[in-house]
């Protein structure tokens, strides 16, 4: 790919089925690859952010996932949907990050700044809610509580919860993404929701 991925409108082209775009990307068309990235990259970044709760880690997952797609796209044989294949790559990388983080005994999400220590996710949440101090405070408190609730989950539970609740995947699809059975995904979702509600039950 020689072009630069820029933020802005994607040039309008005649509507083309995803299969054709994938085939074009497989044959080395850089525009097709860029279209593929742009179709899925917000979802990929959203999954990584919600699972890892760290913008830096989410950025790394994004890079690693799309570079793996770029290098291995020729091996994609349409045996499953492209998004299942992509989400499998993304969730595997997220799981690796979470496992490494566990080994490092949960790295601190606090960043030292000139204004004192600041939580990295709070900075991200504030960027969206800076207009209203009450909203900022609420957003910060809620974000902190969700983060605490997520920390009670195992890496796999986190991923299953994210894919079912936020991405709307069916349990069967989650099983395919994680290379496990629907029943195992169901058990994982059950444990995740129980733990989340134990911490966040009063949100209801």
């Amino acid at each position, binding site marked *: 790919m020689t072009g630069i991925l820029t933020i802005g409108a994607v040039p309008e082209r005649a509507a083309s089925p995803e299969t054709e775009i994938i085939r074009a990307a497989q044959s080395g068309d850089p525009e097709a690859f860029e279209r593929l990235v742009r179709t899925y990259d917000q979802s990929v970044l959203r999954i990584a952010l919600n699972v890892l709760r760290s913008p830096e880690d989410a950025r790394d997952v994004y890079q690693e996932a799309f570079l793996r797609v770029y290098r291995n796209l020729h091996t994609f044989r349409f045996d499953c949907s492209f998004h299942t294949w992509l989400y499998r790559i993304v969730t595997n990388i997220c799981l690796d990050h979470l496992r490494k983080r566990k080994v490092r005994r949960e790295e601190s999400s606090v960043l030292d700044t000139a204004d004192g220590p600041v939580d990295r996710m709070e900075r991200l949440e504030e960027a969206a809610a800076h207009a209203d101090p009450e909203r900022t405070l609420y957003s910060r408190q809620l974000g902190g509580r969700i983060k605490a609730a997520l920390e009670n989950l195992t890496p796999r539970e986190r991923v299953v919860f994210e894919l079912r609740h936020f991405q709307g995947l069916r349990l069967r699809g989650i099983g395919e993404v994680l290379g496990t059975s629907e029943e195992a995904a169901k058990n994982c979702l059950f444990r995740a929701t129980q733990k989340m*509600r134990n911490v966040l039950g009063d949100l209801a």
Partner: protein
Amino acid sequence: MTCGEIRNAMPFYYYGELPPEQEEEVEAHCAGCAPCHKEVEDYRKFALALDEAELGPSLGLLSECRDLLAQRVGEWERPAPKPKWWRIDFRFPVAALALLLIGWFAAKLNLPGQSQPLITSLVRSVEPDASGRLTIAVDDVQRRVINGGLNDANVRRLVLIAARDESNPGVQVECVDALKRMAHSTEIRTALMDAVQHDPSPSVRLKALEGLKQFATDGNVRNALSTVLLNDSNPNVRMEVIDLLVGGGARDGSMVGVLQNQVHREDNSYVRIRLQKALQQMNASEGVF
């Protein structure tokens, strides 16, 4: 089913993952059991709170990721430089020189005591030609702070543009939140209807629905809401739409068909119960004849 079994089945019931016969058992049980009915309601509120706190990637982060990916894919494709002195890769020293020059110019522009807008410069490419001259492509992003209300046409235009910018859902939510207070303006109401039908972020769609609440009896708004009810993938959004469509309590004949249509295709048990109740309120049957 016992109350304990209902509680254990709740997440799967909410996400529409129960087999039909179990789903019917849950519904029958909840219809006559107040604590379990409350459990269903509590789960929905819990899920709604999570939806509202969902983190969307900011424009800055997305932009950074895309730029870095383009750069890394480019490096992957680029052949290794040949080790001849006249083929030394000048790009990095030249890019560094370009940045220094930009820094120097920026410093010259930002004289003490003068309030200058913040300009971020990003060198996109540096191409030396045979004579030693350089062609440098620089993106300048200038940040300005603008204050004003939505009655100011310029402010309104900017907010409307940002409300449609799907690359930054965080800012979108803020913009839709601001716009909803001015939904009496046709232009703004149209933007909210557009957001509720097409925006990929459920948080943005829920905010837009809040703005349309007071206009739920307007014909165009009702048409947009029925489209959302039939097509939206998020159960919380569909629930809010049903509340808006039947909120007034009045029987709207044109909506009965929409609700009847949806009740048969609805895969979320909780939303289906709400649809059935809405049809009951309207003295309409569930079936389409």
